[in-house]
C-alpha cells in the first residue's frame, strides 16, 4: 500500500501571552491510499489543530514550528501560499463539525459549491459549475437538488447542511478528505446516514479520509487504522482490530472502558479520573501520568514510541524495555 500522507514529528505551538501552548507536539502518523484513518481523543487533545496544520490553516497565534507533512511525496510545509491554496479544496478537502456555522449565511448552497469549482478551474463557466453543483447535491442524497441549490443555509436542517458540506468537499474529487467531528452535531439517526454516505462516496471517489472524532464507536465502525491522541501527542497507533482487541496504553484502555457495552453488565460506567490538563500545564515526562493508575517512577521521563507488534505502536514505559 502506498502512503498518501505522512506526518512526521509535527509540532504546532500556540504562542500565548501566558506562555507557549504545545497543542501538537512531535506527532507522527501516516495515511495509506484509500484508507480511513481515525484520530481519536478527548476535546483539547490537539486533533483539530493537527487537521488545521495539514491544511496550513492554523489560526494565529498558533504556528507550525517543526516537522514535515508529506503529501503525494511533497512537503506541504515548504509550499508557497498560492501552491497551498491550489491544494486546498482540490487535493485536500475538509469538512467541519458545526454545519450550522460553517456555511456562509448570505450565499446560496449552490453558489458555495459552484464557487469551490471555479476558484480552482477558472476555465469552467459559472453555468457549468452550477450544473455540477446541482449534480453533486443530488449525489449526497438531497432531494429536489435544483431547488435546494438556490436555498440558503438557514433554510436547511443540520443533516442537510452536513450533506451540502460533503458535496462541497468532494466536488473537486480530492485525494484526501479531512473530516473534523463531522457527525458530532447531528442526531444519531442522521449520524448513521452521514457515515454511510461518506463511506460510499469514499469508495466511489477513491479518496482517503482522516476522520477525527471523540466517539470510539464511530471509529470502530468505519476506520481501518486508528491513532489515539492525548495532550498533543499520539500515544498509540495501530490497525483498528489491534487497538480495540489489544489496547496497550492505559489511556486507550480507559477510553475503551468508558464506552457503554451491551455484553457486560455494569452498575456504573467507568470514567478516567481527572481531566485533560490545560495546554500550558502539561506535566513533565508522560503527559498522562497524573491520571494514570499504572504510573511509576520512569513516567517522569518522556517515553519513546515503540512498536509492540507489527504496525502497532505505543508511547508508554510499560512497553519499553
Amino acid at each position, binding site marked *: 500500500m502506498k502512503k498518501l500522507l505522512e506526518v512526521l514529528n509535527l509540532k504546532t505551538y500556540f504562542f500565548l501571552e501566558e506562555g507557549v501552548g504545545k497543542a501538537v507536539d512531535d506527532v507522527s502518523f501516516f495515511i495509506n491510499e484509500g484508507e480511513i484513518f481515525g484520530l481519536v481523543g478527548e476535546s483539547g487533545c490537539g486533533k483539530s489543530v493537527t487537521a*488545521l496544520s495539514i491544511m496550513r490553516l492554523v489560526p494565529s497565534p498558533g504556528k507550525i514550528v517543526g516537522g514535515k507533512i508529506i503529501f503525494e511525496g511533497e512537503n506541504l510545509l515548504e509550499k508557497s501560499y498560492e501552491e497551498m491554496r491550489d491544494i*486546498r479544496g482540490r487535493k485536500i478537502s475538509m469538512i467541519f463539525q458545526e454545519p450550522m456555522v*460553517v456555511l456562509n449565511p*448570505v450565499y446560496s448552497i449552490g453558489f458555495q459549491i459552484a464557487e469551490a469549482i471555479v476558484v480552482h478551474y477558472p476555465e469552467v463557466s459559472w453555468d457549468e459549475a452550477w450544473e455540477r453543483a446541482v449534480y453533486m447535491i443530488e449525489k449526497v442524497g438531497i432531494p429536489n437538488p435544483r431547488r435546494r441549490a438556490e436555498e440558503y443555509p438557514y433554510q436547511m436542517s443540520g443533516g442537510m447542511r452536513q450533506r451540502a458540506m460533503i458535496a462541497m468537499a468532494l466536488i473537486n474529487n480530492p485525494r484526501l478528505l479531512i473530516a473534523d467531528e463531522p457527525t458530532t452535531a447531528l442526531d444519531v439517526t442522521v449520524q448513521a446516514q452521514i457515515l454511510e454516505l461518506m463511506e460510499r462516496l469514499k469508495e466511489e471517489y477513491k479518496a482517503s479520509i482522516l476522520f477525527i472524532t471523540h466517539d470510539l464507536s464511530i471509529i470502530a465502525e468505519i476506520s481501518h487504522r486508528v491513532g489515539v491522541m492525548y495532550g498533543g501527542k499520539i500515544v498509540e497507533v495501530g490497525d483498528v482490530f489491534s487497538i480495540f482487541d489489544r489496547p496497550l496504553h492505559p489511556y486507550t484502555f480507559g477510553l475503551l472502558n468508558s464506552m457503554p457495552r451491551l455484553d457486560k453488565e455494569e452498575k456504573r460506567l467507568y470514567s478516567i479520573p481527572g481531566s485533560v490538563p490545560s495546554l500550558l500545564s502539561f506535566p513533565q515526562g508522560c503527559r498522562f501520568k497524573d491520571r494514570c493508575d499504572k504510573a511509576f517512577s520512569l513516567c517522569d521521563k518522556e517515553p519513546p514510541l515503540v512498536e509492540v507488534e507489527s504496525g502497532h505502536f505505543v508511547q508508554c514505559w510499560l512497553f519499553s524495555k
Partner: protein
Amino acid sequence: MTAYILRRLLILPVILLGVTFLVFFMMQFLDPVQRLSAYIKSPAELKSLSADDLEKLVDKYGLNKPLLVQYFDWLKRVLRFDLGWSEVAHQPVRDAILSRFPATLELALFAVFPVVWGGIWLGIISAVNRDKPLDQAIRIFAVIGWSLPSFVFGILVLFLLYGVLGLFPPGRLSLWAQNIVSSPDFKLYTGLYVVDGILNGRFDVALDALRHLVGPIITLSYLWWAFILRITRSSMLEVLHKEYIVMARAKGVPEKLVIHRHAKKNALIPVLTVAGMMVLGLLGGVVITETIFDYPGIGRLAATAAQQLDYPLILGITIFYAFLLVLGNLVIDVLYAVVDPRVRLE
C-alpha cells in the same frame, strides 16, 4: 422579496400617522396664537389685527374644536404640504423648504460616496491588518477626526483650501455662475447645479458648483469616517473569526475573495444601519458644516428658524425630517433584505 417590500409599504401609512400625531401633540404646548402662525397663509393676515380679530382667526381655523377634529384638519393641510408662512424666509414654509432642499440633496449625493464608502474601505483595511502599523495609523487618524468639533475642523479646511490655496470657495456658486443660473436661458431641471450645468451644456457652471462642494465634503468625510470605520472594523473582525471564513479558505478561495466576498457581505449588515442613518443625516442637512461653508441648505434654514423662533418653519422642517426618516428606514430595511437572505422570509 416583493411580498416583503409590499408588507413594509403597508405599514408605512400607520407609521406616518403616528409621527404626525406626535408632532401635532407637541404643537399643543404652544398657545393658540403661536399655533395660529402655522396656519396663516401670509403675514398680511396677521398685521393690524386687534385681539378681537385674533379670536376670529382662531375660530376660522378651528383651533377651539375638539383635539381629534383639529388633528385631522391639520393633517389634511400637512398632506397638501400647506404649512403656513415663514417670517424668516419671507415665503410660505413649503417654498422655503423646497427651495433649499436641492442644495442639501446635491451636497448629500456627492458626500455619500466618500463618507460611507471611504469609511467602510478604511474599516476593512484596518480589520485585515489588525494591530499592524497600518491599522494603528488609520485608527489614530480616525479618532482625531472623531474628536475634532466640526466647527474647528470645518474652519481649518476653509482656511487652508480657500484662505491659503484659494482653490475651493464657500457658498454654492461663484457670483458669475450665480448670474448664469439665475438668467432665463438657464433651465433648472433638477435644482442640482452640477447636473443642471451639464444638462445646459454649461460645464463651467457645473465645475464651479463642484468646486464649492469640495470643502463641505472633506469636512463631513473626515468627521464621520471614524464612526463608520469603527463599526466596519469590529464587525469585520468578528466575521473573520467565523468558521465559514475558515471553510472558505479550506476550499481554496483566494484571500482577496475571502475578504471581499465571504467576509465583507456579512460584515456590512450592521454597517448598513449606520450608513443609512448617515445618508438620512446628510439629506436632513448638516447644520454646522452648511453654516461654516455658507451653504444654503436645509440645515442652515433649520438653524435660523430655531434661532428666530419661527414656529411654522420649525414645524415644517420637523415634519419634513419625520417623513425623510420614515422613508429612509424603509429603504434601509429593503437593503437589509437584499444583503441578508434571512431577513426576507421573516
